[in-house]
């Protein structure tokens, strides 16, 4: 897919909770083609400390409103700076980058999309895409507590939502990998994004149960376009470039 460097206009910056915000970006001309699983490289302007672009998943693309949504967690200086942007600001992005999730599962497949923390970001776009293509999605979303569960009403538009919280304040208590749905129902395919320990546990679950599992990795990056080889992950076939051969991988291919 052709990549672009674009200046988009910030339409909305919604603070979702203390640590998370949602950017809605738009442009006078139609946004280029983008697919679920892909990401963008955001330029953080006017910061003495931030030098490189920041990779962020495509959370959702609203074609009717011509909007690109990014769901971001504040973890450091770059994300902090982006959280301070006001509507009308120009944001420079490289997009769309990386590969996609499997977008054409066998019809009638039992699909579960599992996200932990801000790892839920790419799953909204994926769920919407799959629903549009007549697939039924189950979402299993995990967070620390009820207030950290983000975008639930959005996810509910595209499938059945199950949740876990570490303190039991919403859904089942524990981690996503402990949710009873994984025992009571069987699935043909898992799509996952979240903290490494979560994806590792799911990779193990997948290999024990024989379920096909795709994970989306969040390695640190410099270029985001396959030029520097800073972002590699170790796999059975040696070092793979996460920004071009990923970020989505068959969990079986990776060394955990």
């Amino acid at each position, binding site marked *: 897919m052709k990549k672009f460097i674009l200046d988009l206009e910030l339409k909305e910056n919604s603070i979702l909770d203390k640590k998370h915000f949602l950017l809605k970006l738009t442009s006078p001309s139609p946004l280029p083609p983008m697919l679920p699983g892909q990401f963008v490289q955001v330029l953080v302007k006017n910061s003495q400390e931030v030098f490189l672009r920041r990779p962020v998943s495509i959370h959702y693309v609203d074609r009717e409103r011509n909007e690109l949504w990014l769901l971001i967690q504040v973890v450091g200086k770059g994300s902090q700076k982006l959280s301070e942007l006001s509507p009308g600001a120009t944001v420079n992005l490289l997009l769309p980058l990386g590969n996609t999730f499997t977008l054409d599962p066998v019809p009638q497949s039992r699909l579960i999309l599992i996200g932990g923390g801000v790892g839920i970001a790419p799953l909204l776009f994926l769920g919407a895409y799959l629903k549009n293509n007549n697939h039924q999605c189950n979402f299993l979303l995990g967070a620390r507590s009820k207030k950290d569960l983000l975008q639930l009403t959005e996810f509910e538009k595209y499938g059945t939502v199950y949740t876990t919280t570490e303190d039991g304040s919403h859904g089942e208590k524990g981690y996503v990998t402990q949710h009873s749905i994984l025992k009571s129902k069987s699935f043909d395919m898992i799509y996952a994004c979240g903290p490494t320990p979560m994806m590792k546990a799911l990779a193990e679950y997948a290999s024990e149960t024989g379920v096909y599992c795709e994970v989306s990795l969040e390695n640190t990056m410099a*270029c985001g376009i396959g030029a*520097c080889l800073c972002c590699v992950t170790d796999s059975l076939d040696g*070092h793979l470039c996460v920004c071009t051969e990923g970020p989505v991988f068959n969990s079986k291919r990776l060394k955990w």
Partner: protein
Amino acid sequence: MVKLSVNIGGVELKNPVMTASGTFGYGLEYSDFIDISRIGGIIVKGTTIRERQGNPYPRMAETSSGMLNAVGLQNKGVDHFVSEIYPKIKDIDTNFFVNVSGSTIEDYVATAEKLNDLEKIPGIELNISCPNVKEGGMAFGTSCASAAEVTKAVRRVYHRSLMVKLSPNVSNISDIAQAVEYEGADSVSLINTLLGMAVDAEKRKAILSTVTGGLSGPAVKPVALRMVWQVSQAVKIPVIGLGGIMSAQDAIEFILAGATAVQVGTANFIDPCISTKIIDGIEDYLVRNKFNNISDIVGVI
């Protein structure tokens, strides 16, 4: 019309802007963003005699106005370059140079020999300055004797333009430049990355898997400028300047300090269009200051 073309060690570049090894892939990675044939020269990734996996992740750390990398020359080997990459780039109208790396003199020689016959590769950049490999690499570039030895051995077998890339991790870079000039280098490029380190205070660990890595970006620019100026006084062969170039103004500063051409590295990660913007910016500068020829400003300091 101002004349932007320059000659570096027998190779005619349409303008003095090249892209630096390891930061521009094989050029093709950037072709959605710019017309890469506008670039004066493209130095491809570090290439070794056999495939290398490079160092374990994490291999990158952002620093103040720069970054550290410890990629460690991951590449699929020179045969793969010749059979798979070369056919894809050979008809692009720019000058591709292969950055040749190795652990032993025999490796450098064998790699260079395999590139001799590639019609559309007018030269190689001998990387005797990579700080990210355990054996060889930078070790060759840090003493006059070993820099001379590897240059001499490669010169004997390689018949096209030989650019030698110097390490800044030395006490007297001019001595090394003179040593490789004496052994037949057609040009020198400098600087490679400066050996550095980054620590994660919260985790109480080094950020890079290798602990140390190579620093690049604007943070190194004053050091690079100084070295380009020193080396250009010490040798007669063309000097290619790099290290922290982010804009046309930065590039012009290197040219004024003595560089015949420049390379743009880390800046490509922040703006994939920067190399062509720098070409335009240099041209504007010459026009604005009423120079007809880029050579009018080389080394005026």
